[in-house]
């Protein structure tokens, strides 16, 4: 893991120290550490089964854990029941209480706090307005659309003014387009309210759009923490790169030369500057990541011998959002690239051979 979460000079709010949790012989959460600042939105990103939801339940107090501490503003939460923590939870599948209407769902937490009827009244009204459902309190939750349910679930979790809001794949049940609209809406509301939040998802676009910092989790471990920009530009290993949607990831063997390093990969040998290779894995097995912007298509007639090119045969081509997404077979591997639709279509015919130039200064070398 990369413990670079102290680079923001903010006061620590929620501190998670060395939390571990085992189920039988399976480790669900493994030595996890993070400091979350007040007002910060952290996303927990990882494939299903990586331990995200378990960690959330541990923070909520719904799950016992084996070792470590969870503390809020320097107070350990050990022994504090979930109902006494004043947190909020937006569960997976957005389950609303089916026997209560919209109003009573939102008022649930306020009633648990024994707030006065007048307070409840105005608070629920405020929240309905905040999430864009004014005057819809009397509706039955069964008749709400997916998006509306999501808004009500958000309002319900925000109503008691939680110190920390946990969102467990809150968009899981919704279709893609609706998700994009909604997570922007959710982010706007979270920032407006100023609540500290942990947002669990397996969708990197969603995580990057919503959060200030993202944590990538694999097999119960935090393997990288950072801002979306940092994660995207320097994913620390092949798993993260793959998870963030990079397609051109190849195993590589590094051989150090006096002024450069040689990368031996299935698509060819690349020479990179020493500063491109992180110190930790010189002379070692590593991963080559070829970002799309490092690849250019060479016209056969303009071929110069100065640039390093590799050639491959076009295997498939699809048109997507103004770009052609092309798969090129290079030796035994497949290289994915996306080119503007203005590219000469004859050149992009299936079965054509393409000469590709790969800019060695733009490729990335990651841990295995």
């Amino acid at each position, binding site marked *: 893991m990369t413990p670079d979460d102290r680079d923001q000079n903010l006061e620590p709010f929620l501190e998670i120290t060395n939390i571990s949790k085992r189920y039988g012989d399976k480790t669900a959460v493994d030595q996890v550490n993070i400091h979350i600042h007040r007002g910060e939105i952290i996303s927990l990103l990882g494939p299903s089964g990586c331990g995200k939801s378990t960690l959330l339940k541990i923070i*909520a107090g719904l799950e016992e854990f084996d070792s470590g501490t969870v503390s809020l503003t320097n107070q350990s939460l050990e022994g504090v029941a*979930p*109902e006494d923590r004043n947190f*909020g*939870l937006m569960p997976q599948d957005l389950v609303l209480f*089916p026997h209560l209407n919209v109003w009573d769902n939102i008022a649930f937490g306020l009633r*648990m706090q024994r707030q006065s009827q007048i307070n409840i009244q105005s608070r629920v009204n405020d929240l309905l307005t905040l999430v864009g459902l004014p005057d819809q309190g009397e509706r039955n939750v069964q008749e709400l659309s997916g998006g509306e349910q999501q808004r009500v679930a958000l309002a319900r979790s925000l109503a*008691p003014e939680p110190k920390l809001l946990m969102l467990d794949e809150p968009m899981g049940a919704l279709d893609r387009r609706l998700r994009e609209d909604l997570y922007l809406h959710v982010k706007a509301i979270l920032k407006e309210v100023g609540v500290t939040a942990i947002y669990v998802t397996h969708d990197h676009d969603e995580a990057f759009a919503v959060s200030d910092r993202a944590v990538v989790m694999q097999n119960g471990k935090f393997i990288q923490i950072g801002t979306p920009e940092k994660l995207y530009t320097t994913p620390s290993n092949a798993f993260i790169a793959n998870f963030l949607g990079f397609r051109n990831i190849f195993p590589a063997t590094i051989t150090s030369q006096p002024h450069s390093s040689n990368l031996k990969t299935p698509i060819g040998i690349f020479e990179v500057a020493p500063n491109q290779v992180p110190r930790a894995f010189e002379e070692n097995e590593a991963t080559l990541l070829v970002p799309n912007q490092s690849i250019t298509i060479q016209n056969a007639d303009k071929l110069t011998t100065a640039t390093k090119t590799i050639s491959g045969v076009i295997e498939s081509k699809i048109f997507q959002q103004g770009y052609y997404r092309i798969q090129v077979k290079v030796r035994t591997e497949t290289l994915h690239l996306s080119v503007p639709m203005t590219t000469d279509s004859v050149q992009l015919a299936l079965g054509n051979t393409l000469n590709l130039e790969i800019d060695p200064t733009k490729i990335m070398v990651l841990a295995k």
Partner: protein
Amino acid sequence: MKPTLSGAVKALPFAFLSVLFAYPLIMILVKSLTHGGSNPIEPFGILLSDSFYLQRIWFTFWQAAVSTILTLAVGLPSAFVFAKYQFPGKRLLLSLTTIPFVMPPIVMALGFIALIGPSGVLNAFLSSTFELERPPIGILNTVAVVLIAHVVYEFTIVVRIVSTAWERLDYRLQESARVLGAGPWATFRLVTLPLLFPSIIAAATLVFMFTFTSFGVVLILGGSQNSTIEVTIYTLTAQLFQLPLAATLAIFQTLMTFLIMTSYAWLQETKIVQIGFQPHQKEERSNEEKRRRLFLGSNMILVLIILSPMLALIAKTFIDENGLNFTYIMSIFSNTQNSFFFVSPLKAIMNSVIFAIATVTLSIPLGLASAYAIGQRRVWWKNPLDGLLMLPLGVSAVTLSFGFLVTFNRAPFDLRGTWAIIVLAHVLIAYPFILRILLPALRAMNPALRDTARVLGASPAQVFRKIDLPILSGGLVIGASFAFAISLGEFGASLLLNRPELTTIPVVIFRFFGQPGQENLGQALAMSTLLMGMCAISFFVIERTRGEDRWTF
């Protein structure tokens, strides 16, 4: 978190069952062993080498198998109609089919006598129409009438379980099959039937178990030749006082039902997983109005046939050769009888209602705690555990009462002749139904509801009160009505544990029925009609509560 409290709640049903169920059964086992000397297997050896008992065991199996097949044959078409069509009075019709299920066998017997007895409604009608000298239908006291009575009893089980599953079947699967080139029949055979199979098997298992332990119907209607294990236990206990032998038979029967119940629990779980809550069409898009009418009409006739013994009984109560006659029903409310067994009918009604209320009060928390004890676990022994908790349903009322009699017969726990012993027997018979009704709903409940409520500030007790109870409330009302009706109609335990001052409606009917004379028969009919009315009211409550068709066992 308070694991101790929830642990205690979940342990409650097991504690209850250990004392009131396992202990009596062990006492029966002990009784059985004294019969065989030192070798524990020996009593069973004796049993299984005696052709008299072998013949009865064989009869028990085959009549149960045939009854099950017949009930499926009659019930499945009706389940189809109930699942696929909406029509006015659908719920009422469905709830009417449940009435026979909770009727004591003596009422069923009276119904059959009223229908096809020598002067029964059907025989009288046929005789006068075709000018016959003798009543044409003479199947009373034969196996045939036992099988028919079982179909009448268990019809509702097949219809309810299978139609619920059928209704929830994702119609898009059938549409896909049609588009893939399967005709209606092939679609049914290759898609619908395999998907319904678990629920059909589940229904069949229940029917088999109920008919396997059939008591009153066989005792009263079956004639002296035909006797199930259950009837044999009763005869050995109550008439021949051969307790050890009765004990061995009871143990044998209990083992069988435990196997049946465990497989039922397993099947019910697979059913839940496979079918789930799918979107379903409200109704078969019927451009064929003719076919719809044909189906609805046939189904209506079928249900009427199922109800015909009950209808004949009501008719006989109020109508005689001279037309309308209210003397029978009036006689319930006047104390004209004074024979040695005499209990005023009003007193019996009082007893029945009080026992039923006590049964509901005790079996609701017990059923609820049992549902929690097995509802949220995911372990291999969950199904045997479920089978164990359901065992009282399979261990017949007679065995149960027999166990009570050999167990709670010494101070300070001499419960013989107290109201408590009857109520406890009824609780053991009724709570498995509550468990069965609540369990699917509890399993379908998203645990995130509770997590969310906790995080929103609700303590475990508040979560139970504000989330679980309201969500389960429909099931609880239905379970309560069911338990109420079951207690009202319970016959075997009430008969075996009876004392004059504890007499219930079914026992009074049995007594009246056993006495000669038109007057007594009339009173028996009148009490039966009254009982039916009370059960009908309680099922009316059920159907009003069935907001969605989520509640079924």
